[in-house]
């Protein structure tokens, strides 16, 4: 039986038969369907995925006319991280003029709203210069990062220390107090950047510290939208699932803990977000086929229910892409092409 080049979720190369790939596609999709209580993929979708995984071509793309917007978060940091020593404005220009990015984000290396707050007035002139030096829509963005508000990094008692001591109520109260400060910081920084001309505000890796982190993101979005009705806000998630670190927080009557992408997007819509970036995480011990079928099952359900544009996260460890510092082009192109072909989405 023919063997095809394939990869595991950690990027390692393996040989698999078409039968093995198909079995993994079905298993991956069914895992998502089971967790999210959403439909698995249909036969023709499995067949399409099998075709691209069995294709001998290194690079896979979409049919002309099916291209979507490519947008990047934290890219001003990523280009320096790989050793290209340019400043942030030059980084934005490289992405726009050389790499064809459709939207970009200016970000500070600390990449969280709390540390940006005291230097926000230093960030404003850089944003203003960046806006003059680029043509594409330019976001200012950072992470909500609620973890920075508990001791030793912040003023509030650390819930992860309180919980093992049996102080559950106190841990929950600490999350509730911390999220109020986080909301203030996001609104403060977001307002300054919007007033400096940012085309949008990005709240990246929302929910990283669990349901309280996600709730703060939603409330901050609501407040910014009330203050500036025309503001564009993108909420990009940290992971596929909202962790119940507090566990009992609700937004618009819905419990946030345990929500998957198709439920999260409804919350983002209700808060007034303009774009939503859903996530599906990669399992390194499963094959690329398993991961991609699973990611598409989640993203498809999200896209079908969304009333705002969605830009699924595609990159190292998300969207079916393997966990490599430099994700291989075979996997990135297959995942991107499949996501764009099979899901109702507006960008990646």
């Amino acid at each position: 039986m023919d063997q095809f080049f394939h990869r595991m979720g950690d990027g390692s190369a393996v040989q698999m038969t078409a039968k093995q790939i198909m079995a993994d596609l079905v298993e991956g999709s069914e895992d998502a369907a089971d967790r999210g209580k959403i439909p698995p993929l249909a036969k023709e979708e499995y067949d399409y995925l099998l075709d691209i995984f069995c294709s001998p071509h290194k690079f896979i793309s979409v049919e002309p006319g099916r291209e979507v917007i490519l947008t990047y978060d934290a890219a001003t940091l990523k280009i320096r991280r790989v050793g290209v020593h340019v400043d942030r404005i030059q980084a934005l220009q490289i992405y726009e003029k050389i790499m064809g990015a459709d939207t970009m984000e200016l970000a500070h290396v600390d990449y969280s709203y709390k540390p940006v707050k005291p230097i926000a007035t230093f960030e404003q002139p850089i944003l203003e210069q960046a806006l003059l030096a680029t043509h594409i829509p330019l976001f200012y963005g950072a992470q909500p990062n609620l973890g920075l508000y508990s001791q030793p990094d912040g003023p509030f008692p650390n819930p992860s220390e309180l919980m093992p001591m049996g102080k559950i109520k106190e841990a929950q109260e600490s999350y509730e107090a911390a999220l109020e400060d986080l909301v203030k910081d996001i609104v403060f920084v977001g307002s300054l950047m919007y007033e400096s001309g940012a085309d949008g505000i990005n709240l990246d890796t929302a929910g990283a510290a669990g349901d309280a982190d996600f709730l703060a993101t939603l409330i901050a979005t609501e407040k910014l939208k009330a203050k500036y009705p025309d503001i564009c806000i993108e909420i990009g998630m940290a992971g596929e699932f909202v962790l119940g670190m507090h566990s009992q927080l609700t937004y618009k009557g819905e419990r946030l803990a345990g929500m998957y992408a198709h439920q999260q997007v409804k919350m983002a819509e209700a808060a007034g977000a303009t774009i939503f970036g859903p996530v599906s995480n990669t399992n390194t011990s499963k094959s690329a086929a398993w991961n991609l079928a699973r990611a598409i099952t989640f993203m498809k359900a999200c896209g079908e229910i969304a009333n705002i544009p969605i830009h699924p996260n595609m990159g190292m460890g998300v969207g079916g892409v393997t966990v490599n510092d430099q994700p291989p082009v075979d996997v990135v192109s297959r995942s991107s092409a499949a996501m764009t072909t099979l899901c109702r989405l507006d960008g990646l």
Partner: protein
Amino acid sequence: MADLNTITQALIAGDKDQVTGLVQKAVDENVAANKILNEGLIKGMDIVGDRMQEGDMFIPEVLMSARAMSAAVAILKPLLGEDESVVTGKVVIGTAKGDMHDIGKNLVSMMLESAGFEIIDLGVDVAPEQFVQAVKDHQAQIVGLSALLTTTMPMMQTTIDALKQSGVREQVKVLIGGAPVNQEFADKIGADGYAPDAGSASKLAKQIMS
């Protein structure tokens, strides 16, 4: 008349005061302690375990239910006869040598305790010989090993080897858990079981003892 289903629901809600109040009321109404335990409390913790496994309940809620369970068991313990002991089995538990991460291990301990197991918690960074000694000292039936780091996973194998070399491997079942491990790894190192979360660990331990 005491309603055991109400106890179950209060336990799932993690309402310690309500659970202890209802359990005391049931005791006052002469409902047998083992009936309250099995049909009210353990039934509730089974549902908590299932919901945790399904992603419908989370750590803070599980902790609240476990705390309510402990308080209720404290009321019932003096009333249970020798043959109605709440002890399902003895578990020696700890994190593998070199691993200081104990949140998952503590949660598993709580779930097992709520399911009626006696827990001998050796804490974190536990050497293989400490596991061996504890198994001998307490005549445990289960050893629970937890690791969060890929670098401490090999110590699980070393611990199992130490149990073999000391001649106690046959008397215990070894269950492993933690973020980097899976069923495949459990099979590879010769563990008897793997549980991905605290709810599953409790179920698995009960299966082993049944």
